[in-house]
């Protein structure tokens, strides 16, 4: 039986007189395989959230578990907390809900998926990262979690069903594997929903970097959210820090599902973030997972680099490498990595993202807040980016996010109350400053997001709140005659940018994305490639999407909307067992499997 420990982490301040709600839940800090193959590693209990509501399901303010299995068309009862304790903590009333279930039960999957997803959202909303609530991309406040959604080696986020679907399957030894028990998979899928809420257009971009970026954010969140669990860190520091395998539990993503699909001899995990991939190597890669690994490799390099820099610093050497010191260094390294790599996501332009643009924003944001880079952490990011061919200086200028902001003295309508009030209020500010923000006077742009953050700079130090405004406009780009069809004769370029201002409407950040020739050409080239690869389909029946990676449809204005088929993003490698397969079927499947491995 696994060793189980308890952990509480939430200390979110709430208004006086309010009862906050927290839940304590047993979760796999990695997955059941990691547990069994490594003895005491790593299962624990995570505390999820100070929340406004907790109910059976489990249900909380932003998540609800619906245990519906579409393969059998059955519904399973929601899990209720085991007990609710009412007490006072730090002068505040609190309800602590305790969720627990036995291994192998449906309730275990319900609790694990819910607690991990809630924790992932908290990672992004953390005051060191975004410091604000993240909206969903769909019309609704709670995202559904289907922990045993269907018999399929697949897990996906769907904007259409407003849900995270986690499949289950049998491995080659007929052992059941539930993707909802994998911390990495749940964190990854929850991150898709979170990023979609922040930047909905990324799933509608034909640029392969946008889909790759989605995968990267999922993998990075899976890695970094581990560091929010003290129990995980406590067990990590038991390992030998000098061995290369020290970080394997962080970098090897979803070991159980990986083994279930490929066998241990083939691969130890579904994916690894320990890699030396360069952008050039994946430039023509259409699989977003492979493409995104360049960035997840970079993220791990930064995490490892900051960790070692911390240990090797004069202060680190003085403190030594005892477990307590390692614990602290790991926490710090993760916090800085989140700050440098996750925080900038909130400042990216809304229309589209390329890897180089992302790195460019990340460096610019860090440079703004920590101009002297006293600890040299930004240098670690720059070095890793250069090594992977992602440093802005290695690319054409026009791909960079420009960091030259207009002077504050030139801005008009600097009324923070108006900007915060609504999208229209924010529009008025941008409209009054079209020239400064290089918004064409003949374009009817729109504000697609406004939010104000409450961030922390360091321990106990709070930043001045920033209001972040995203705006964009669309341009139609006609397709050349040899690829044009009646169904798809143009694509859409989304130009615009993201502006962040402080309480006095001083510009803190501006990441414009202008409709340059290079951007137009790149987008057109990628669209043509998708069409030639037969990766796009048109949905002739309303409400029906296709099995292809992209679906095109026209809106009321006749503009073509391309949408990444998220239900298929993680599918295709699955090697499902099926009874009664003929020899011919087996041969066909073997050929597919061999082709997949050959890739």
């Amino acid at each position: 039986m696994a060793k189980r420990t308890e952990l509480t982490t939430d200390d979110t301040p709430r208004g006086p007189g309010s009862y906050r709600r927290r839940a304590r839940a047993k979760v796999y800090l990695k997955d059941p395989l990691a547990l069994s193959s490594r003895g005491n590693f790593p299962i624990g209990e995570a505390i999820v959230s100070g929340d406004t509501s907790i109910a059976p399901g489990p249900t909380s303010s932003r998540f609800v578990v619906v245990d519906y299995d579409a393969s059998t068309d059955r519904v399973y009862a929601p899990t209720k907390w085991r007990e609710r304790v009412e007490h006072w903590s730090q002068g505040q009333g609190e309800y602590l809900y305790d969720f627990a279930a036995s291994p192998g039960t449906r309730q275990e999957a319900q609790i694990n998926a819910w607690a991990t997803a809630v924790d992932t959202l908290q990672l992004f909303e953390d005051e060191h990262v975004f410091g604000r609530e993240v909206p969903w991309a769909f019309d609704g406040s709670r995202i559904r979690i289907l922990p045993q959604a269907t018999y399929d080696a697949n897990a996906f986020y769907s904007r259409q069903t407003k849900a995270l679907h986690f499949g289950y399957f049998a491995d080659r030894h007929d052992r059941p594997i539930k993707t909802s028990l994998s911390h990495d998979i749940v964190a990854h899928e929850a991150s898709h929903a979170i990023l979609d809420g922040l930047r909905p257009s990324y799933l509608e971009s034909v640029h392969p970097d946008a889909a790759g970026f989605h995968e990267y954010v999922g993998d990075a969140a899976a890695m970094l959210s581990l560091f929010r669990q003290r129990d995980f860190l406590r067990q990590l520091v038991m390992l030998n820090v000098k061995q290369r395998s020290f970080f394997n539990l962080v970098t090897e993503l979803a070991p159980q599902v990986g083994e279930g699909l490929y066998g241990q001899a083939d691969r130890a995990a579904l994916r690894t973030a320990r890699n030396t991939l360069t952008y050039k190597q994946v430039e023509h890669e259409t699989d977003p997972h492979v493409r995104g690994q360049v960035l997840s490799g970079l993220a791990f390099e930064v995490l490892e680099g900051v960790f070692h820099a911390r240990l090797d610093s004069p202060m680190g050497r003085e403190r030594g490498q005892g477990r307590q010191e390692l614990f602290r260094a790991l926490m710090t390294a993760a916090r800085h990595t989140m700050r440098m790599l996750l925080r900038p996501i909130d400042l990216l332009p809304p229309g589209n993202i390329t890897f180089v643009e992302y790195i460019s924003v990340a460096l610019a944001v860090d440079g703004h807040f920590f101009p002297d880079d006293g600890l040299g952490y930004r240098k670690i990011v720059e070095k890793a980016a250069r090594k992977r061919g992602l440093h802005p200086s290695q690319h054409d200028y026009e791909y960079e996010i420009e960091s030259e902001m207009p002077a504050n003295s030139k801005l008009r309508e600097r009324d923070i109350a108006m900007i915060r009030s609504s999208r229209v209020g924010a529009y008025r500010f941008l409209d009054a400053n079209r020239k400064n923000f290089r918004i064409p006077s003949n374009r009817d742009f729109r504000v697609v997001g406004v939010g104000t953050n409450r961030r922390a700079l360091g321990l106990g130090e709070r930043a001045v709140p920033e209001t972040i405004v995203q705006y964009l406009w669309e341009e139609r780009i006609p397709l050349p005659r040899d690829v044009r069809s009646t169904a798809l004769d143009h694509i859409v370029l989304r130009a615009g940018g993201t502006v962040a201002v402080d309480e006095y409407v001083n510009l803190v950040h501006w990441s414009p994305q202008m409709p340059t020739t290079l951007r137009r050409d790149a987008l057109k080239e990628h669209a043509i490639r998708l069409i030639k690869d037969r990766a796009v389909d048109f949905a002739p029946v309303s409400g029906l999407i296709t099995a292809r990676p992209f679906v095109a449809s026209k809106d009321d204005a006749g503009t073509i909307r391309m949408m990444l088929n998220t239900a298929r993003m993680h599918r295709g490698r699955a090697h499902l067992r099926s009874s009664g397969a003929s020899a011919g079927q087996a041969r066909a499947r073997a050929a597919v499997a061999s082709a997949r491995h050959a890739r």
Partner: protein
Amino acid sequence: MANDVRVRAYNVRFGDCILVSFTSGSTDKHILIDFGNAPGGVRSQGGINDVFEPVARDLARVTGKRIALLIMSHEHLDHMEGFFSQKAIFNEFEIGDVWMSAMSAPDYYQRFPQCEPEQRARLALHATALRWDREGRFERLPAALRSLIANNVLAVANKDRIDYIRGLVPKSRIKYLSRRARAISVASLGRGVKLEVLAPEKDASVYYANGGHRFWLDATARFGGSPEKRRRTAKNTTPRAPSHIAADEFELLRDEIAELDLADLLAIDKAANNTSLVLRLTVNGKVMLFPGDAEGESWAIMKQKNLLRPVDLLKLAHHGSINGMPFRGTEDVLAQVLKPRKGTVALVCTCRDVYGDTTDTAIPHHELMDLLEDRCKAVHVTQDAAAFGLGFDILL
């Protein structure tokens, strides 16, 4: 006139039925291509098979119950249901040869195991449809989806339909065809007739590919991925919403998930359409192209292999839907198959307001129709040219 070629198209609601007639020597010859209508469940006009009998009687009258060549382009009901439905009349016909797509050969999937996902996907869709039907869920699906499912699975479910067509002639006179380099001559049709098979490819799995990977139809086959022993016997009742979810919200979620699963349906439908026998028929110097329901993937290969030539009559594929032309380079393909200076007559076997519920998804597709109007000598739409159950002639 002796050299005339008469193409008689029937208004069978949403389906194909085309009779090509000409004189060879002193004898009238007839080639019948498809006879069917979309199955029940469509919004209007489809599934009403009252058209079959008058059409079958007219065919008997016009041909004198003698058909030299009967062609079934592919295994969809809107191309084959009429034969089975009117077997009492067709039993009296004297049929020379029967041609079908290579994929209709009984041993095809044994010979081409790489195509097995298509078959597995269709069988699994059939099993799913049956389950939903038992549970009363099928009727709740949008009408167009019900029709698409029925169109794809009923032929699987009722093998009798295809067997009936096979049984119209001795085995030796059935051909299961795929693209071949040379034209085929049929002695009974006379010397002036040339038949070229442009599609399907022998190995139909080429149509499932996407960027060199075959995953999309393999993924679709997951309908059947769940081992039987893992499937529980479905209850005949609708599952009740869990206590923490409002009943109507849960029902909506359940339907949305079902639609997500049905996403695979289009892949299955497309795979079957792309197995269509694409035939270029030359009679007395008049060239006609009958592509069945070939979709973009099939057109792309025909274009790539430089098989397309200008024709006198183009039967539009797939009832004039946006999928019935290549997704890439529609205009390029039309430029290759249409004669310059409006020299081609277009035939669209279709019925409006059956599939597609927006201007852009409606069949026939308005932009495609506009293109044809602009570039063809005439565009004949079966629904406009004749009343239900009647035919009209195009003289070439």
